[in-house]
């Protein structure tokens, strides 16, 4: 498996640092991080990551906005997105099997193993 590129867009810089360390230490992943929606958008378009981990509530350009723009660009429209959020509870996500209206959600705080499994699953489909 060649080194897959994962783009993390989250306004929490420390989160980005930890998630990068965590994922990279668990497999042949390259993790790119962006703490602003606009920056994440630029990276997505330029780096064409395999998966995007996207925070929803962010100052400036919100996660939903980023996702919308990405879906409008054919180059990025197909990149799977995992929404990492604190606004939907674990319980709800659990009940819905993690997919709400066709979107993949993971509740914060992230359980690392769950996230890695999800990433691996998604990558195996592509």
């Amino acid at each position: 498996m060649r080194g897959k590129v994962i783009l993390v867009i989250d306004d929490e810089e420390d989160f980005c640092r930890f998630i990068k360390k965590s994922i990279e230490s668990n497999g042949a992943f390259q993790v790119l991080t962006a703490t602003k929606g606009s920056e994440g958008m630029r990276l997505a378009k330029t780096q064409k990551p395999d998966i995007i981990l996207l925070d929803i509530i962010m100052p400036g350009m919100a996660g939903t906005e980023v996702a919308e723009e990405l879906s409008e660009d054919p180059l990025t429209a197909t990149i799977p997105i995992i929404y990492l959020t604190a606004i939907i509870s674990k319980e709800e996500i659990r009940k819905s099997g993690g997919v709400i209206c066709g979107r993949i959600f993971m509740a914060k705080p992230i359980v690392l193993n769950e996230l890695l499994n999800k990433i691996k699953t998604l990558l195996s489909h592509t």
Partner: protein
Amino acid sequence: MNDLSKTNEELIKEISVLKQRIQELEQLVLDHKKAEEHLRESETRYRLAFESTYDGIFTVDRNFNISSITPSIETQLGYKVEEVINRPIQDLGILTPESLTRAISDVIQVLSGVEIKCAVYEFVAKDGTRKIREVTGTPIIREGKIFGVTAVVRDITERKRIEKALAESEKKHRFITEKMTDVVWMQDMNLRTVYVSPSIEAVLGFTPEERLAQDVHEQLTPASMFIALDVLAKELALEKDGQSDPERKLILELEYCHKDGSTRWIENIISGIRDDQGVLTGLHGVSRDITKRHKVEQELRKSEQKYRELVDFLPISLYEMDTKGNIISGNPEIFKTFGYVQDDLKKGLNVFQLISPQDLDRAVETALIVMSGKRTGGTEYTGIRKDGSTFPFLNNASRITHEGEIVGLRGAIIDLTQQKNTEKKLQNTREQLIQAEKLASIGLLSAGVAHEILNPLNIISLGLQLLQNKATLPPDVKEDIRICMTHVSRIVTIAESLKQFSRISGKEMVMADLNDVIANVLMLYSTQLKIDGIEIETQYQPDLPAIFMDKEKIEQVLVDLISNATAAMAEKEKKVLRIITRRNALTEDHDSLMIVVSDTGTGIKNEDMPKIFDPFFTTRQGKGTGLGLSISYGIVTDHGGKIWAENNKRGGASFMIELPVRTVVKNDSL
């Protein structure tokens, strides 16, 4: 006789005549002697009378000198004859100045030939005492000329005393007759009046003579007549038994006819008249007009009746008690309030039986204050009914005084049960409003707060997970990290719950059958409940109308209540979860469905009751978030409903949810 020619026969005749003459003379002497004796007797009698009846006689000459005086002056006035004789009367000081003036004027009058009869003078004795004497003055006439006055003095002290006593007695008698309004009377056994005092006229207009001629039925009104005869019959029966007190007195109020056609109420104090053998021969009595008193009494009675009716009618409990707290009287309401009957008073009922023991000290204290004359205002106590149940009441008391002495307390009691219920309802409503406010503001914040908490927590969590995955860590450090992770989880649970304060959205509202929703939840939890040893009892009212609801949220409320009930019953032997539904269709505006979730658990402490719907309030330290009930509260109120809790009488608690049947759902989700 010298005639010799007289015959012997003639001489014998002459002798006979002489003998008769001698007899006549002898008789004359005898008569003279008799007359003399008679005179002497008479003189003695007059002298005695003079000495005993008259104080004395004195004579006054034309110069007012006392020319002669009887020695009795000494016994009468203390002067010796020689002290007064030949001295002018005006110099002697034997008369008071007023009497002397009259006396001189009277002497002048007598000297002019006019007799003075019974002039009353006041004499002054030598020792200064005063003596009233009656004096009759007659002129002394010698050879046709008046040259002095004879004065006869008579002691009239006794007469004056008698006269005075008589006058006083008469005055008294007149006063009694005029002023006495009591009538004294006597009747024979046929009730015929045999004596009546003159005062009858002042009282009833009839003279005593008219009264004596009257029959008893002419004296009394028919009603009083009936009473009088009835009483008499009873008394006579008693008399027959021989057990009655012969000295007894009877007081009888009767209505009498007045001469003017009106009537008078008269109080009679009647006793019997008995002969030497003690046999009743008549009645005597003293009667007094009490018409005015009777009228006042009647008015009082009417007024009393009016007040009694008012008191009996009032929905306030009224009572009177003595200083020891014994209830003396009460109106029907007080007996009703405390569950007693009037008869219980006879057995003795103390006010302290009616007050809860913990209020007794306060009650005694208040009673003492009231008896001291101060006002305390209303005091609240817990009352005890005859059946032992309790209720709150308000007492207002004042002291009762009789002839200046405090004899007890009089008070009014108001049952506060209804008021308390209303207050409680108001309080509940107020609390619900506050709760709703609280939840609304929390709702506004919570989602944001949750997000703000979860994000940093996410970082901590991830950091910890990173550390945990380091193979080189010593085991105890790994354990410490694990502990930190569990507490991270706790924060997550709280934050997650907080997010639920976001309001329900109209999109999720559907028409659903409440009984189905409950049955569905119970089905999901039945296995767990069985494991926990909980018995389920359901009582669904069939055919409930479907109501507009967010099924998921209502399910969430039910799950929360079931979960609370399970926790409350954990330590109990008997674990019963009872769920009841029913419809409260009171009016078109008030049509609702009720869900009651009861358990047999530990119940809710009174002090906790107001806080159970507060966010973060929990009795399960470390286990609950304290958000379940407040979220349920938010959900129910968002449905336009109400949720509240009560402790069951036989232990455990019940949660009541009321959901409106027709309602416009609020659609102001956050």
